[in-house]
């Protein structure tokens, strides 16, 4: 079947909207753990291969709505402005903030009223980059501004559950993000005045 360019773009857009949400979801710990731990951590040094059925019985069951909740929230966030998702996985290995998330990182202050995104802690990193932690309803993470002006995600974790509802950013940073902040920060976090001044100078 031959599609014209417009149809191809529509096809790509629809499939991206259907499947790209997973790219910005937090990686389940059971998957990242497989690759973080040294081989010696497993007795005998061989990973245990399981089949789907037994893997499933090892976890508490999750209903479909809960399972898709993270994706739905990503899509909601992504559709606030246009249909773009808030991050983009790049071939150079960087995951960049996009759309409303990038906008919040560029302009929003920690003192902003709760919304889709909150930006609680900003600081200068040891490597000289400006870094900002953020939370959404589902995710929390740390992004640092690269020389090309893009906000590169350093860590992304599931947000600490909040009672604010699907659309409202979580209030607390999860431990994984706090450790990333601790590891990267040079000196102290910015106070309100320093944050505003750095924002006004475009985080340069």
């Amino acid at each position, binding site marked *: 079947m031959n599609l014209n360019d417009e149809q191809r773009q529509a096809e790509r857009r629809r499939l991206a909207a259907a499947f790209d949400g997973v790219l910005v979801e937090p990686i389940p710990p059971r998957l990242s753990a497989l690759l973080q731990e040294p081989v010696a951590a497993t007795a005998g040094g061989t990973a245990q291969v*399981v089949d789907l059925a037994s893997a499933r019985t090892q976890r508490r069951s999750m209903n*479909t709505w809960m*399972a898709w909740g993270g994706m739905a929230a990503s899509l909601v966030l992504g559709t606030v402005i246009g249909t773009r998702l808030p991050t983009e996985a790049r071939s150079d290995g960087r995951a960049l903030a996009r759309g409303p998330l990038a906008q919040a990182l560029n302009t929003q202050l920690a003192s902003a009223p709760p919304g889709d995104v909150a930006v609680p802690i900003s600081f200068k990193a040891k490597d000289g980059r400006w870094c900002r932690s953020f939370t959404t309803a589902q995710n929390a993470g740390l992004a640092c501004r690269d020389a090309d002006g893009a906000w590169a995600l350093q860590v992304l974790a599931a947000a600490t559950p909040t009672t604010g509802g699907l659309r409202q950013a979580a209030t607390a940073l999860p431990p994984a993000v706090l450790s990333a902040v601790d590891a990267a920060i040079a000196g102290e976090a910015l106070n309100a005045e320093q944050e505003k001044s750095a924002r006004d100078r475009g985080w340069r």
Partner: protein
Amino acid sequence: MPQDLPALRQEIAALLPRLRRFGRTLAYRQEDADDLVQIAVEKALTRTEQWTPGTRLYSWMFRIMQNAWIDEVRARERRGQTFLPEEEGEQVGDGSTSGSPLDAVLVRKAVAQLSEEHRTVVGLVLVEGLSYQEAAETLGVPVGTVTSRVARAREALQNLLGEWP
């Protein structure tokens, strides 16, 4: 010959978001998709000697996932289980909601109703963006086979979803 395991682990870890996305095109349910990623990563780590450094890691990982998936589908068929969404057979819509979260669900359901062969090429070519040549190498089939599968998969998707708007 032993590979540089820490480096390979890091590279696979960086691929996890894409592996999970490919998993979701193969398996409709999120937990099935992540189980599939887990199995593929475990298998990859036990046979790192089969990985040729300098070749495309994602292609190798996708192949392991796809093979693991076929094994699982056959096992499920033997057990009489199904992977299709619960609301199998319902009308999946006319495309008027393109781009919305609702449409995303419709598109995923439509993809879930494709045959295994069609779903695989949709995942590799249309979602993961592999070239026909890369997809053919990943699947170990001729490029012409991929070309015709993609064309038929597109046709099947359009029948389920209506014309791309």
